[in-house]
């Protein structure tokens, strides 16, 4: 399906669009409220700059931080694995589960496991792999993709979820969020207690202590890491931070920006396996650090995209996202960060670069100063134009870089467009411009162009 077809499909779904508009507006306003408070306390600018600096510190010294993290995890009884590609990461996870004899898997929310298609691969291998974040659980039951980085099921209403639970769990549930959550809690609690392995992503990996830091409101990452005997974390290599001191600006800004909370309900840091004398926690711990196109960005101007902490606030700020939602992009990462990041990881997806008006609202609201629309513009410039487009642009440049040619062609344009002018606008445009003009008014050439008016103006002021 082309980008264009997908967008038409999404724009036609009125109730889904209304749900996305409401959810993005709600979290956008909650974030603005928090940012206003930080600004009034004189802390906002300093926190954002500090957050950017600690992200850059880790990215600039990536090899050193990774080595330090690897040593710290090993000291705690765990193991770090490096995966060059998505397939390698999936194979690594499958091998760990097989070695451990693990068949029942519970999962905490993670965008990177979506990126590598982990759950489908586990299911294909005959394992049970259940999402435990409420939103992820809902879309897993529905067989859909997440529509938002922090709210994967925000496009579904309570009635959609009630119908889904009735159909898939075989019990009638009232269409009330609290009642629906109670059913999910009961079903998933049994799965947590029976699971052999827990799989998580990571919000941060702290090199200093080898800690995997997970941020949730539901507590599902806590149960995923506390109960099963095997713990596997999969994280992009950009998740490293040097120290606990460096977490302060990140954990101050992340909840306030993502959901408007002062602090997320649970911030959990797992460092190593179950320690001697402990009654619970994993006996086996693996951290799979994923490259999949990231390492080649280190040391380039595109490295800045790796500062992202996945708060989702650029999605809420984006005029394109608010109309088409995450499904309009057809990729795991949607919104401005998806447009900036996805083509860098996978050049085949450069069609995404068109889903941006370069308005800059994303960049303005990014807590860690990812220069989102500047990156998108730079990537557009690298994209190869078609032969026809290049020829047309050259011709245009030639015609309008000489006053005589400019005057001649603009007079010509005025003549040929005359039959299509209605109320100062063109009613028809040729070829690809026609598509461009479907949603826009193209003004008709002026009856008296600026050149001619200028000449007359000259005569008026210097008689």
């Amino acid at each position: 399906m082309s980008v264009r077809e997908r967008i038409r499909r999404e724009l036609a779904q009125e109730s889904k669009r209304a749900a996305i508009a409401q959810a993005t507006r709600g979290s956008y306003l909650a974030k603005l409220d928090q940012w206003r408070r930080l600004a009034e306390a004189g802390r906002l600018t300093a926190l954002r700059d500090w957050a950017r600096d600690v992200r850059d510190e880790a990215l600039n010294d990536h090899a050193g931080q990774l080595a330090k993290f690897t040593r710290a995890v090993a000291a705690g009884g765990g193991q770090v694995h490096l995966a060059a590609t998505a397939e390698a990461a999936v194979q690594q996870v499958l091998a760990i589960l097989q070695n451990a004899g693990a068949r029942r898997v519970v999962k905490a929310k993670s965008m990177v496991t979506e990126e590598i298609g982990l759950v489908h691969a586990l299911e294909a291998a005959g394992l049970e792999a259940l999402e435990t974040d409420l939103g992820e659980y809902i879309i897993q039951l529905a067989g859909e993709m997440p529509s938002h980085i922090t709210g994967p099921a925000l496009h579904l209403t309570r009635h959609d979820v009630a119908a889904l639970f009735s159909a898939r769990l075989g019990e009638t549930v009232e269409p009330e969020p609290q009642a629906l959550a109670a059913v999910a809690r009961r079903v998933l609690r049994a799965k947590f207690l029976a699971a052999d392995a827990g799989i998580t992503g990571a919000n941060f990996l702290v090199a200093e202590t080898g800690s995997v830091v997970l941020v949730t409101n539901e507590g599902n990452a806590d149960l995923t890491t506390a109960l099963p005997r095997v713990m596997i974390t999969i994280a992009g290599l950009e998740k490293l931070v040097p120290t606990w001191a460096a977490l302060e600006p990140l954990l101050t800004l992340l909840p306030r920006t993502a959901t408007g909370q002062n602090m997320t309900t649970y911030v959990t840091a797992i460092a190593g396996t179950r320690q001697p004398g402990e009654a619970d926690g994993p006996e086996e711990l693996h951290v799979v650090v994923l490259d999949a196109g990231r390492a080649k960005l280190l040391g380039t101007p595109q490295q800045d995209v790796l500062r992202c902490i996945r708060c989702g606030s650029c999605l809420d700020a984006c005029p394109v996202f608010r109309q088409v939602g995450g499904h309009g992009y057809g990729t795991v990462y949607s919104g401005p960060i998806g447009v900036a990041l996805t083509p860098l990881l996978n050049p085949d997806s450069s069609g995404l670069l068109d889903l941006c008006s370069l308005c800059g609202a994303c960049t303005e609201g990014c807590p860690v100063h990812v220069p989102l629309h500047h990156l998108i513009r730079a990537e557009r410039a690298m994209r190869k134009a078609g032969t026809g487009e290049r020829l047309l642009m050259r011709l245009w440049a030639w015609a309008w870089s000489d006053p005589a040619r400019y005057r001649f062609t603009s007079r010509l344009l005025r003549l040929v467009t005359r039959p299509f002018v209605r109320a100062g606008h063109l009613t028809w445009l040729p070829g690809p411009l026609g598509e461009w003009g479907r949603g826009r008014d193209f003004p008709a050439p002026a009856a008296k162009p600026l050149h001619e008016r200028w000449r007359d103006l000259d005569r008026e002021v210097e008689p």
Partner: protein
Amino acid sequence: MTDFAIFQSALVAVGGAAIHVPGPAEAGAAVLAALRERGVTEAIAWADPLLAQTGLPAAARAASITWLTADPAVDPAEIRAVAARAGAGITGADLAVAETGTLALLSGPGRPRSVNLLPPLHVAVLPLERLLAATPDLFRELSRLAQAGRLRGALHLVTGPSRSADIEDVVIRKMHGPGELLVVLVERL
């Protein structure tokens, strides 16, 4: 406003509750009252030095509440089974932060993670002197613990009861963790 008052209002804002009591005996009475009010019949607790001074296990048993102290000698399988069915989990806490209403809990021997995660009610009892003013103080302390090699195992920063807003952005409680959180701060040990 005192740090306690700030802590209490931050915690109430996220759906939790906090009280302060003069000493360990009053802390025990407060915990017992909370359990009885909710009709809890079975509880599990950390093997924590402050909890040991509250007289709780005996008082709870006298009130017909089955009580398990999860000291390292107890079989881990039993701890998990009891935590999974208990009506309340009672823990200590290493730190608290007034600004955000946050608790910091470090796992360890006698301090199982399940106790503060599985039961529907979590009660944390800690000395008032461990209450810090704001987030920068928390990270200064965590940084100190990290450098001392004391962040092994699990660190849970808990701010209020478990919640979700994944259906229509409506906030609900008791998603996967406890639906209720009560913090008891003890003034004198």
